[in-house]
């Protein structure tokens, strides 16, 4: 199945990405899409001096936000998927709050948590927690009911069912949700990191944009893409580890 290691394919993907980008740059022929070579040169130039520290801040915020989203989202999603009462009670609530544009909550979040790290992490959390809840809930709901029979007949309690069925069975779906959540967290940085900080890829990209410095802006985007690629392939790796049984 993998004669060539995944690394090779990532290389192909990256090459295609750059080719498409070059084509777009060529076609648009405007500073708003600088050619990849120029961007990469700039990226390498400013990586150590600027991007590294911004990237570090963003990474920590993303991971913290995702961590809390998972911490809240998984138990809630599991319970909503398993107990139809929970689902009935919380689903309408989720359905009502999920579509609220999270930017509208910015004043409230600022009020309660100030302008510091907490607010940014909370914004990320608020954006992705619903995705995790819905995905885990739906994952649990799609477990065929026969799967539970052996545990029912053993008189297993809810903790047993969680450990032996709900978690492993919804793991693939949860990992999908995690992928989507991670990517969402990254792509909303531009609005979670623009207040009260001078660090973070979001800040860096918006700052470059307002400075009409498209080279730096695109360097920032390249950095984000790389963060994304790294996180995604980590999840792929996790999936192969945790869901071995699916990959025979």
């Amino acid at each position: 199945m993998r004669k060539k290691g995944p690394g090779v394919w990532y290389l192909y993907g990256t090459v295609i990405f750059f080719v498409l980008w070059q084509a777009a740059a060529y076609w648009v022929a405007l500073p708003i899409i600088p050619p990849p070579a120029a961007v990469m040169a700039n990226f390498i130039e400013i990586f150590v001096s600027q991007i590294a520290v911004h990237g570090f801040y963003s990474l920590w915020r993303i991971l913290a936000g995702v961590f809390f989203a998972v911490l809240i989202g998984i138990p809630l999603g599991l319970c909503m998927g398993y107990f139809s009462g929970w689902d009935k009670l919380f689903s309408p609530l989720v359905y009502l709050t999920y579509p609220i544009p999270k930017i509208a909550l910015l004043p409230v979040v600022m009020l309660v948590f100030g302008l510091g790290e907490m607010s940014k992490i909370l914004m990320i959390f608020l954006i992705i927690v619903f995705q995790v809840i819905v995905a885990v809930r739906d994952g649990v709901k799609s477990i065929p009911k026969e799967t539970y029979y052996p545990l029912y007949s053993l008189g297993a309690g809810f903790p047993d069912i969680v450990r032996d069925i709900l978690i492993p069975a919804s793991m693939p779906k949860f990992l999908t949700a995690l992928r989507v959540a991670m990517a969402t967290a990254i792509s909303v940085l531009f609005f979670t990191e623009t207040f009260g900080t001078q660090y973070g890829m979001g800040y860096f990209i918006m700052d470059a944009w307002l400075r009409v410095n498209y080279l730096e802006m695109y360097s920032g985007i390249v950095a984000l893409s790389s963060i994304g690629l790294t996180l995604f392939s980590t999840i792929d790796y996790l999936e192969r580890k945790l869901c071995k049984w699916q990959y025979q």
Partner: protein
Amino acid sequence: LTGCTGNKTEDTSPKHSQLQGLTIGLMPDVDSIPFIIAQEKGYFKEEGLTVTLKSFKSAMERDSALQSGNLDGTISDMLAEAFAKAGGFDTVITSLTTGSYKMVVNKNETVASIKDLQGKDVAVSKNTVIEYVTDKIADESGLPANGINKVVIPQIPARLEMLQNGKIAAATLPEPLASVAIKNGGKLVNSSDRLGINPGVLLFTAKAVNGKEQEIHAMYRAYNKAVDYLAKEPLENYIDLVIAKGGFPQDVKGALVLPQYKKAVAPDPKDIDAVMTWLQARQLIKNKYSYSELVDTRFVR
């Protein structure tokens, strides 16, 4: 993490130790320059004041920070003050700041006067100081109220791009991006400086005005020192600082023309009135606020 404070350590001389800190919000525009200078040249410290400058990338985030009590004061405009009042927030204008908004025509348009913009697309952001200035410019040249076709593009860099690539005839831009547009071939039509209108103001929360009177006085002293500095010093000497700290484009070096900074003064009642009239005519606020409701003249007159 703490705004534009630079890396100056806190002043602990006993004489000033009673002063509390001030947190002030900035935007990447020319109004903010005196604050950056005062901070970087140490004028605030000379007054024994610790000012934390927080920069924001969008007016809404800045307003939210003020409304949620995370800022004592901020660079803003008269419209924002009126909106805040109407929205139930207790904030006051303490002085004018010096800003500049310019209407720029794209280089391919053959526009001799503003009249030629009749029926053409002009990019603005709606219900903001940008639209206000645009209306004033149109008014002044005798264009009817709906003479130009206003296109809403709130993101300033996007507005700039659309202008430069000929997708719209003209755009009203704040400095420093107006300078970028002009440098790249755009033609200046008119500006708030030329019209003599100046809607930029410094806003404080009522809580700060009442609780930090000393501090605000000190801040204005430093502000005025910075204005002095800006008046006598050539631009080359501080443009790099402004670019670095103010979030200005590198491109403006050599192109940016700063407005004539004035020492802090209270706004002219006429100007306030003009803004109120404009807002009311467009049904953006219900009640017309009086000068004394909006402006607190205890710091500067």
